[in-house]
């Protein structure tokens, strides 16, 4: 994902300001990594890189879903709860309804898709702002997770636990992360639906006039967001060998932060999967680095908040550069 090269050899004049504005998150990630590399020898080791990849997988996949929503000028606040519900549904189907593991896995994914579609329908047809529709779902989905689990963790089927294991030296979460990134990127860039998301996010009325079924796109956007959330939830459950009722509480904020750090605009119409991936890596690298340096947890929250503020600052500069 780091194949972005400056276009200095083109006929366009190379502008440092523009480069910084377009690749702020990437530059930030590189600077951060360099600083940590200097600060602690434990940072740049093969195992730690893998650790970062594994830890980024959950946030990044949630954030891919959120990228769809944000590109289409919506927001999905329910992803953390939906992740927990998807995983819990799967574990419940396996343990309590005695479904075979693979079917339970599919049921978990389907739960995410359906719950997401409900969000989308409430937004597109029920005329609820996505902020409200998904805020409601945040509560509903968490409640259903608690109902299913009765407040205690449930063991996951072996196929879900496999998601948290390794194939040879390579952790499965990283493989899933790469696949999810490729799929999300393909949807957003190479499909009519994906391109329509940009159009809807840029200007919904213009999109409608140009023949895009805006409502249908909105339903698909949130359904996809729910599906990606379920994938992330199953991954997290796999790593813990159990579906936790309190899994992924507050992760929606991480997901949104990752998308914003990655350069998407909350106004809609702009955002990239590669950016979101970098955004998620920035968050995880910060947490990893602060752990390695044994920084007090009180300060960790301060640092993460500042990074988000900085990233949004970049967003403002970027929009100015683009419009000039």
């Amino acid at each position, binding site marked *: 994902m780091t194949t972005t090269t400056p276009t200095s050899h083109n006929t366009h004049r190379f502008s440092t300001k523009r480069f910084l504005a377009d690749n702020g998150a990437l530059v930030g990630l590189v600077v951060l990594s360099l600083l940590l590399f200097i600060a*602690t020898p*434990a940072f740049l*080791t093969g*195992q*730690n890189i893998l*650790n970062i990849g*594994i*830890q980024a997988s*959950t946030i990044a996949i949630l954030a891919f879903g959120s990228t769809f929503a944000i590109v289409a000028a919506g927001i999905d606040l329910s992803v953390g709860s939906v992740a927990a519900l998807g995983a819990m549904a799967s574990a419940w189907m396996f343990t309590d309804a005695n479904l075979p593991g693979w079917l339970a896995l599919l049921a978990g994914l389907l739960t995410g898709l359906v719950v997401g579609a409900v969000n989308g329908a409430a937004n597109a047809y029920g005329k609820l702002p996505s902020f409200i529709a998904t805020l409601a779902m945040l509560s509903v989905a*968490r409640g259903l997770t*608690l109902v299913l689990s*009765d*407040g*205690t*963790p449930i063991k996951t089927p072996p196929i879900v636990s496999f998601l948290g294991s390794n194939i040879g030296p390579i952790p499965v979460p990283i493989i899933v992360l790469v696949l999810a990134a490729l799929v999300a990127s393909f949807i957003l860039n190479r499909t009519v639906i994906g391109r329509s998301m940009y159009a809807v996010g840029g200007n919904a009325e213009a999109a409608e006039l140009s023949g895009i079924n805006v409502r249908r796109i909105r339903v698909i956007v949130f359904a996809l967001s729910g599906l990606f959330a379920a994938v992330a939830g199953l991954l*997290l459950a796999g*790593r*813990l*060998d*159990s579906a*936790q*009722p*309190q*899994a*992924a*509480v507050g992760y929606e904020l991480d997901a949104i932060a990752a998308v914003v750090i990655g350069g998407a605009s909350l106004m809609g119409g702009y955002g990239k999967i590669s950016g979101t991936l970098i955004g998620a890596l920035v968050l995880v690298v910060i*947490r*990893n680095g602060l*752990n*390695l*340096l*044994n920084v007090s*947890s*009180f300060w960790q929250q301060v640092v993460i908040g500042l990074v988000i503020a900085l990233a949004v600052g970049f967003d403002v500069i970027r929009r100015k550069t683009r419009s000039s």
Partner: protein
Amino acid sequence: MKSMLKVTLATASAALLVIGLVGCNRTPAADNGAAAPMKVTLSLSTLNNPFFVEVRDGAKAEAKKLGVQLDILDAQNDSATQANQLATAASNGSKAVIVNAVDSDAAGPGVTALNKDNIPVIAVDRTVNNAKLASFVASDNVAGGMQAAELLAQSIGEKGSILVLQGVAGTSASRDRGQGFAEGLKKFPGITVVAKQTANFDRATALNVATNLLQAHPDVVGIFAENDEMGLGAIQALGNRAGSDVKVVAFDGTDDGLKAIKAGTLVGTIAQQPGNLGKLAVQQAVKAIKGEPVDATIPVPVVSVTSKNVDEFLK
């Protein structure tokens, strides 16, 4: 016309909602009228945590035994929600209220209001500040922390580097356990705490934090987690090192924690007895209602659980 219809519909649904709410409120009060069972309200900080689920189950079982009607409310870790619940308890015919405070200070005003109505209040697990409590039922977290230090020290031969996974920053459980653990460690000068980081009492967070810390300190021989959930996350991070070259000691004695002791991945846990907390709280409530003397504090002992005695705790 269309907007008229909308207004009518909205009014109608609002009216229905009100009727529904009133209806809900009335039923238990009506039950209470004709020599119905004693009603006690239990407001729990959260049911989103196996520990409090066990408190609830213990309370429920005891209530059934004593013929008490127990209303169980979940404050979802929100002090404001809890304040509302306490206010409701004052008006719905509860003879006593058991409160597991979301926050010891924030619950004060709600409990004071109950004091004014002469409804006895029993605090469970966390105390309530600036209000009158009939009784406070809790495990001794500081003593538990000291016991945990002892357990961990013994299992690693009283020397080496260890990690501490802390709970939610600023909570009394985390403070007390951490304090007890630090005091307990003073007896063992050979042990150094090389890193202390929070994992928010959460298993997934602990998995990440422990993984990161093990990267920075590959030579650790022990981990103390301030609750079982984090201990289990650390065990997941350790993989097959758990129980062999790195010993983990946790706190709470939840089902999953006990299973991990049985499996040999967790050396020990300090079992609070959440079921007993709930049970004793209901007993105190009944005593208070009947006007029998009630002890101001009921310390519920914490127990060190290891592979030796784990079977007594596993259900």
